[in-house]
């Protein structure tokens, strides 16, 4: 394997993994800590991407667009929490599944109504649109490097907040026993709403960043949502550290198998057959990874609570 | 005299660095009521869990009625006559009292891999469940939903479920916890009635009950038994006093 392929693998894996992390982090907080299954998490990601596209168009600046989008998505997240989710915390997981499934429908259809059937294009900001030469003979997308940086920064910040600060403890306390945490003087309502807001903000960032390389379209949330769930289950639900390791594992497995398997198969079978098998196997490997982890560690790699 | 029913040998259970059960050996004679007392965190619940099959010991063997059951799954132990009640009430909350008991009776009356015949046509099961409700003093409440019962009545049902499996040995983990004096007395009475038919291993911090019921008391400290004997011996044991009883015994 030559060095440029190796570099591609490492960087692509990191980029995809950290992107997943931005989504998984919010999901793991809401799910692991508040014990709330939010299928509409992917919808916030979609909304974030759409907002960024619209605001970027409106203001002419990606950065301003991103900022406004984060704010708007947070508002949507808070409204959702106050109007819907709050009534569902004490209900069973299945009610939450049904309610948030309904929200997916509502979000997707609203997006289609507002922004149309056609995928929107969100261009990377100018200063990050050119490749960067990392060393002679190897260029890499500066935008993807930026994603890697953002992901790492967010991971560090979240890890610190959740595990090292009082806020983090209060959040976890409120999650396991809401009434008791309230009786001890914590304003759990406010804390939970804020937590949702943080999750929404992360979604918006992820939507903006990934939307710029891919495209902004209805349904973009669902396909990645399931991967985000895989990530948090592999990492251990509720653990930020787990979400990070899980994201990198899933990102790594996906990237390596998608890059390495098809050529490997092509070396001994027809390109069409290899292309059937390669990507499918790459996707399967992610689930094999999850099943394998759960087989040996039934609560994920870093269970946040036992 | 009477033979040994339960025998523990060199039992060890570790949680990370903590040794919750430390090379513990113990034997309980058939028909006896044997109490285990000890400070908080001494490893009493951990011990019960291992005997009942909810936890696997790291070392040592558990023999029940002469046979090694160390690695037997929980339901097989129950089938051999080793039943437990839980420290925290653990019943079928949304089912009626009758259904609770009938389920336990059904467990030992033939296979339940029967897919076609309505279960209600098995009236023998339900008759027996009613009798059991009588035994534990719930005969007037058979149709009540378990979660609507008062705390004390739920504790009675808890014991009833264990009894319904027709155990030869009953493991009771702090059955009086959270009960007032009145309910405690009722339970003591019930356990007294079972004496002779069922061997009982009792964990309790309520010394009054322990001294009243147990023929033999073992004191567990740091996962080890530091003393065994009858009520008087334990009461007067200086080490036990220091580690566990304090001055309260006098009261």
């Amino acid at each position, binding site marked *: 394997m030559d060095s440029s392929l190796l570099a591609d693998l490492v960087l692509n894996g990191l980029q995809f993994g950290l992107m997943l992390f931005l989504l998984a982090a919010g999901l793991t907080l809401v799910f692991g800590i508040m014990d709330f299954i939010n299928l509409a998490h992917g919808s916030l990601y979609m909304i974030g991407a759409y907002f960024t596209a619209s605001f970027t168009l409106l203001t002419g600046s990606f950065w301003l667009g991103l900022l406004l989008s984060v704010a708007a998505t947070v508002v949507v997240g808070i409204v959702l929490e106050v109007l819907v989710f709050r009534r569902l915390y004490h209900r069973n997981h299945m009610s939450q599944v049904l309610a948030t499934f309904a929200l997916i429908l509502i979000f997707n259809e609203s997006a289609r109504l507002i922004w149309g059937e056609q995928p929107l294009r969100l261009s990377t900001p100018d200063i990050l649109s050119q490749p960067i030469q990392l060393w002679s003979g190897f260029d890499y997308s500066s935008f993807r490097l930026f994603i890697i940086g953002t992901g790492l920064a967010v991971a560090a910040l979240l890890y610190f907040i959740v595990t090292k600060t*009082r806020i983090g*403890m*209060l959040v*976890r*306390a409120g*999650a*396991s*026993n809401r*009434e*008791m*945490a*309230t*009786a*001890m*003087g*914590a*304003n*759990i309502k406010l804390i939970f709403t804020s937590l949702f807001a943080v999750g929404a903000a992360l979604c918006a960032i992820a939507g903006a960043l990934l939307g710029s390389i891919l495209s902004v379209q209805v349904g973009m949330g669902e396909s990645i949502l399931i991967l985000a769930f895989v990530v948090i289950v592999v990492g251990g639900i*509720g653990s930020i550290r787990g979400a990070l390791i899980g994201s990198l594992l899933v990102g790594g497995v996906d990237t390596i198998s998608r890059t390495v398997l098809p050529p490997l198969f092509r070396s001994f079978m027809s390109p069409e057959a290899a292309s059937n098998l390669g990507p499918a196997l790459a996707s399967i490997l992610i689930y094999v990874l999850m099943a394998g982890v759960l087989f040996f560690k039934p609560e994920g790699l870093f269970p*946040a*609570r*036992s | 005299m009477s033979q040994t029913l339960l025998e523990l040998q060199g039992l060890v259970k570790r*949680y990370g660095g903590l040794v919750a059960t430390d090379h513990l050996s113990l034997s309980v004679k058939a028909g006896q009521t044997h109490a285990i*007392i*000890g*400070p*908080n*965190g*001494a*490893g*009493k*619940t951990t011990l019960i869990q291992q005997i009942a099959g909810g936890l696997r010991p790291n070392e040592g063997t558990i023999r029940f009625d002469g046979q090694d059951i160390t690695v037997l799954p929980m339901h097989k132990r129950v089938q051999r006559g080793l039943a437990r009640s839980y*420290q925290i009430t653990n019943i079928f909350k949304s089912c009626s009292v009758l259904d609770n008991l009938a389920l336990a009776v059904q467990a030992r009356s033939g296979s339940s891999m029967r897919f076609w015949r309505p279960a209600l046509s098995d009236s023998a099961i339900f008759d027996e469940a009613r009798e059991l409700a009588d035994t534990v003093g719930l005969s007037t409440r058979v149709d009540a939903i378990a979660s609507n019962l*008062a*705390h*004390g009545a739920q504790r009675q049902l808890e014991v009833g479920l264990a009894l319904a499996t027709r155990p030869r040995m009953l493991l009771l983990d*702090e059955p009086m*916890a*959270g*009960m*007032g*004096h*009145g*309910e405690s007395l009722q339970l003591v009475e019930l356990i007294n009635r079972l004496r002779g038919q069922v061997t009982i291993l009792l964990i309790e*911090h309520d*010394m009054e009950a322990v001294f009243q019921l147990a023929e033999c008391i073992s004191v567990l400290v740091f996962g080890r038994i530091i003393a065994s004997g009858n009520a008087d011996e334990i009461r007067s044991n200086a080490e036990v006093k220091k*580690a*566990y*009883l*304090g*001055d*309260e*015994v006098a*009261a």
Partner: protein
Amino acid sequence: MSALLQVEKIDTAYGASQVLFGIDLEIHSGQTATLLGRNGMGKTTTVRSILGLTPARAGSIRFRGNAINSWTADRIARLGIAVVPEGRQIFPNLSVKENLIAFACNRSNSPGPWTLERIYQLFPRLKERARNMGNELSGGEQQMLAIGRALMTNPHLLILDEATEGLAPLIREEIWTCLGQLRDLGQTTLVIDKYVQRLIELADQHTIIERGQVVWSGPSGTLRESPEIWQRYVGV
């Protein structure tokens, strides 16, 4: 002098079933008061109403001069009430240390507040298990932790609801001693427990309730001299 806590004629119900019928209760600063009664008589419910967890339907509750009837539970707690609840209610996903420090503060501006070190002194067992998660503790250890957690907020009023349940006799003794020390330090406390004789020695003021109503209240002296009262209502 007005009372620190003043409960007047509260009615409380769970859904359709009313449990409290006009409970009165008064605790003055520095007092140790008790609430006595058989199982299921409404002791815990009274506490829950004070804490705002199951708000009273009628009547008034005043604490430190504020009418707190309609306050949310967290606001009431921040005014300086802490509880050691029935059934411990430890946070299973926080370590022992985190359980203690998560809510720590000095709500009564006490000059010598409770700190982590002092709690560890009181319950050395907790120090040994400091890094364990709440759910990895034995029943009794959890009880100690619940008491420590409440003390760490340095409340004006400390409420202990069956705080000795599941504790070994020796530890139970320690708790009584500790409560005595707290009283000497001027801590106001409301205790619910089944060891009436101990409480008579420890507390100043007693309230006995039966089926949601106050059937007797008075000072320790009276109760000590007439055991038939508590034997009748608490039953031994």
